[in-house]
């Protein structure tokens, strides 16, 4: 299942520890919520990591789907009625996939630097659409008054108003997301995608339609990005245009590269470290961007394979 010792080590350490976290924190609401947000972001970053690191499709507009996930729920669900979580998860994923298909057809006509700019511009377009709209609350966004219920055949699995329950939902989602990507990469589809990234011309010559495979990957990653945004909207009970802003995309890209591109578990690592540093710097100084920015610059210059690469080199040396 896992490619190397570092990955195995991380997964075996992270998930059991994450499982115990609410107990260790004595269910302290603030920290449990904070950690749940990090898990949600990890899903978002992981989907971007797959796209950029595994498919070679560099996007700077992934936040389009993150915001879309939240907005889709607000648009679809009735305002004062609890809806079924699983059903609406399906709706959000399905509609986000259709949107991703349309966006994908446009952006995948280009590559490299062009794709970076076009994805960025399309995401900004949606950002302005929502921040200028009156019916979607403009800059203030919209509130979610009633959280969905998670009943399955009358049995309620999670109470979304309970931070600990919500935390476990996020953890389960992240674990499933990692598992899903791992299985995807091991499947025939994943091997063809590897070939597409390695050598698109040769893959075409073998009879595969490169565009279709890229499009499928784009839709999958975008839908999971939307799922993360949907979870974020549920956690905080509101959606806001800033979810779609290019800063959201940029930060996710930073987290993904910080963790080690294409490693997937690195996405979790990168998000954890970035958010940890953010939290720490924020306590030290109002201008947390200064140490953060400097650190990012140093990191680009110093280690080139991200934290996962660093971890791997540490673990391999011990062997």
């Amino acid at each position: 299942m896992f490619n190397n010792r570092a990955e195995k080590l991380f997964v075996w350490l992270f998930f059991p520890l994450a499982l115990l976290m609410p107990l260790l924190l004595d269910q302290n609401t603030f920290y449990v919520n904070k950690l749940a947000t990090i898990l949600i972001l990890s899903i978002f970053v992981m989907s971007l990591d797959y796209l950029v690191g595994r498919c070679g499709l560099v996007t700077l507009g992934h936040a389009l789907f993150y915001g879309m996930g939240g907005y889709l729920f607000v648009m679809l669900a009735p305002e004062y009625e609890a809806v079924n979580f699983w059903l609406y998860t399906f709706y959000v994923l399905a509609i986000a996939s259709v949107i991703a298909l349309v966006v994908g057809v446009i952006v995948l006509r280009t590559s490299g630097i062009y794709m970076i700019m076009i994805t960025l511009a399309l995401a900004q377009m949606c950002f302005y659409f929502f921040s200028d709209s009156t019916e979607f609350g403009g800059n203030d966004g919209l509130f979610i008054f009633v959280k969905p219920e998670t009943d399955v055949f009358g049995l309620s699995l999670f109470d979304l108003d309970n931070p600990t329950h919500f935390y476990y939902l996020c953890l389960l989602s992240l674990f499933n997301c990692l598992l899903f990507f791992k299985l995807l990469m091991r499947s025939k589809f994943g091997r063809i995608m590897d070939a597409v990234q390695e050598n698109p011309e040769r893959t075409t010559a073998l009879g595969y339609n490169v565009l279709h495979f890229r499009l499928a990957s784009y839709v999958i990653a975008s839908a999971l990005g939307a799922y993360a945004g949907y979870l974020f909207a549920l956690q905080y009970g509101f959606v806001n245009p800033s979810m779609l802003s290019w800063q959201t995309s940029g930060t996710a890209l930073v987290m993904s590269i910080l963790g080690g591109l294409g490693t997937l578990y690195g996405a979790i690592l990168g998000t954890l470290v970035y958010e940890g540093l953010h939290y720490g710097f924020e306590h030290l100084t109002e201008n947390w961007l200064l140490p953060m920015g400097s650190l990012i610059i140093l990191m680009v210059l110093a280690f080139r394979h991200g934290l996962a690469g660093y971890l791997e080199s540490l673990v391999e040396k011990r062997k």
Partner: protein
Amino acid sequence: MDITLFLFQLMNGVQYGLLLFLIASGLTLVFGVMGILNLAHGSMYMVGAYLAWYFVNTTGSFGVAAVISAIIALLLGILIERTLIIRLYRRNHLDQVLLTIGLIFVFNALQSLLWGNDPLGVAVPAWLDGAIPLTEMIEYPVYRLFVSGLCILIGIGMYLTINRTRLGMLIRAGESNRDMVECLGVDINRLYTLVFAAGVALAAIAGIVSAPMVSVVPGMGEHVLISCFVVVVIGGMGSIKGAFVGALMVGIVDTFSSIMLPQVSSMMIYILMAVVLLIRPRGLFAS
């Protein structure tokens, strides 16, 4: 819309377009010659505006402030290229994106540290303060005409430098084959430093001359950066001519849509971009 109002808005659109051209040409010059995607380019525009505000207040003269600010920007460009960008030439675009996002963070933090988060205003210099009548009804501000004229002059200067001088020849040669130019005994490193610093200075000059027209606020750089991306994508990455045409299109569309279609005006330039890309995926003047 009657004809004078149309003319007035057209002039505004062209003026905004010319300013965008100044910024976008720097972005595309650096990319075209050095292959560097500088996301912090918008920050340089912001730096220009803030420097202009600061030096107008300390020296009292807009002209002096503009010259000092432009020189500082040029030096800043040299510093950034020598210390950071120089390490990125053999790296991929992702590393460039990451490093320049880091730079945006640093510049935003420095800006709020030095000058706070309140919007600042710069007065139009007295010798350019006035308006000339277009018709009996409408007057056009002299300062905006001055900015347009300056942008055109810089544009012509850039065109002549790139196409008619030895330096321009080297820049064009470096664009096609870096190693070959190096073999011919040209100090390519110095050439690159110069191009990068020129790019920074172009953005900063746009910021300096914008300062009396807009309010100087945090985040102004990012807003303009995204518009420049649209310009460059429409025109074709790396093409100065494309930047010029793209900037005028964006400037005019943006200005007219804000009076005619205010509900969707901020989206219009992106729609324009999407339409252009559907027809020509690599922009209008892609090489």
